């Protein structure tokens, strides 16, 4: 049975300090979407990655957990990804953890 889970409803409870205008993860070439990169759409626990109608992969990183899964998977498949932590103090800030 498929559970339609609205990720953004889940993220609403979390506390984020968004570093406006400074996304910390960039796919080198969002238009050359390898089969692995396409899997980021289902893989990311915060649902940051989505396929655009024009076939490119776009990321909205406000809800990112900085878990590193997209970096590990992309690099394992030889895909180019620039991955860094947000600037000090920004990003997810767990209340319970």
């Amino acid at each position, binding site marked *: 049975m498929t559970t339609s889970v609205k990720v953004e409803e889940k993220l609403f409870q979390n506390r984020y300090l968004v570093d406006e205008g400074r996304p910390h993860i960039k796919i080198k070439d969002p238009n050359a979407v390898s089969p692995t990169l396409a899997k980021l759409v289902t893989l990311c626990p915060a649902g940051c990655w989505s396929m655009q109608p024009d076939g490119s992969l776009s990321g*909205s990183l406000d809800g990112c957990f900085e878990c590193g899964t997209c970096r590990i998977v992309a690099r394992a498949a030889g895909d180019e990804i620039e991955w860094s932590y947000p600037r000090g103090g920004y990003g997810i800030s767990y209340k319970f953890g």
Partner: protein
Amino acid sequence: MSSAPTPPRAPAKGPGKPAGRSRELPEHLKAYKGVWVFIELERGRVHPVSWELLGEGRKLADTLGVELAGVIIGPNDGSVGAAGADAAAYGADLVYVIEDPILAAYRTDPFTRGLTALVEAHKPEILLLGATTLGRDLAGAVATTLATGLTADCTELAIDMETRTLASTRPTFGGSLLCTIQTLHFRPQMATIRPRVMSMPDRRDAAAPRVVTEPLSMEEEQIVTKVLDFIPDRDQDTAHLAYADVVVGGGLGLGSAENFRLVRELAHVLGGEYGGSRPLVQKGWIPADRQIGQTGRTIRPKLYIAAGISGAIQHRVGTEGADVILAINTDANAPIFDFATHGVVADALEMLPALTEAFRRRLEGAARAA
């Protein structure tokens, strides 16, 4: 370099003496009678919040069985008199007036001196001001001078008959909660109320009001702050979403940045502001100061039209305060229909231009008829 600031001017001793926590009103506070509303007059025009407060003040005065008065402070160019007549038409029994050339533009010191003098002379039990930048600035200064209680940005006023005191309710913790505050043993009980919270009373033709005039015992030389200029907003294209009466918002449902033009056009016809949901900022369709929602601006307009917006909870939190919300979305069970007041299941790309046209005809029709 400047000298150390002089020790604080001890606030007027008088009524501010804190009394015990007993319910009974101390003797010297019984002399405070009547409900006053500060009529905000700037550049010859009265801010509509003043009439809304006269409507609310009338109810409070009738409950307490006391008089409702308007308080008008301004230059002697006749605008004060006109405002006094309007105040009567909106329900004031009398008006207290201070006219002086130096009161042409709002400055904290002279207005505070004037209003404080009127209160100390005529002792109202309740003093209401609009929660505009002027009203809040003045209320803060007057309340400190009189060492009395002030509750800001109220959304509801009532009389607690048990203690005949004003129970004012206001949002707290960023609006997620409400709290009710009272000023038991200090007079006057001051409160500022946000525009468009109280309903506009009906205007009835009334005789000229009783007028009590007081002098402003202050000269221009005593006032340090000078007003050099006034720059109206028209010149700057800065988004004032937080204060706009009408807002038109666009979402991903518009499909492309170019289509966002339809949102701007409708907003223009309605004389309102335009904005969009978080994803639009991320896609760069709109600048960050145009974002509506929890991490953007919280809006509290009369009318909010949400075109092609799904209505995620982050968006709901920032827009739920609107009086009327019209949601236009092709998806009948989009979450936005759960909190909008009105909904149209249709394509925003078609509805927006149609509404723009229909509103333009409707408003021009009204303008010609007026």
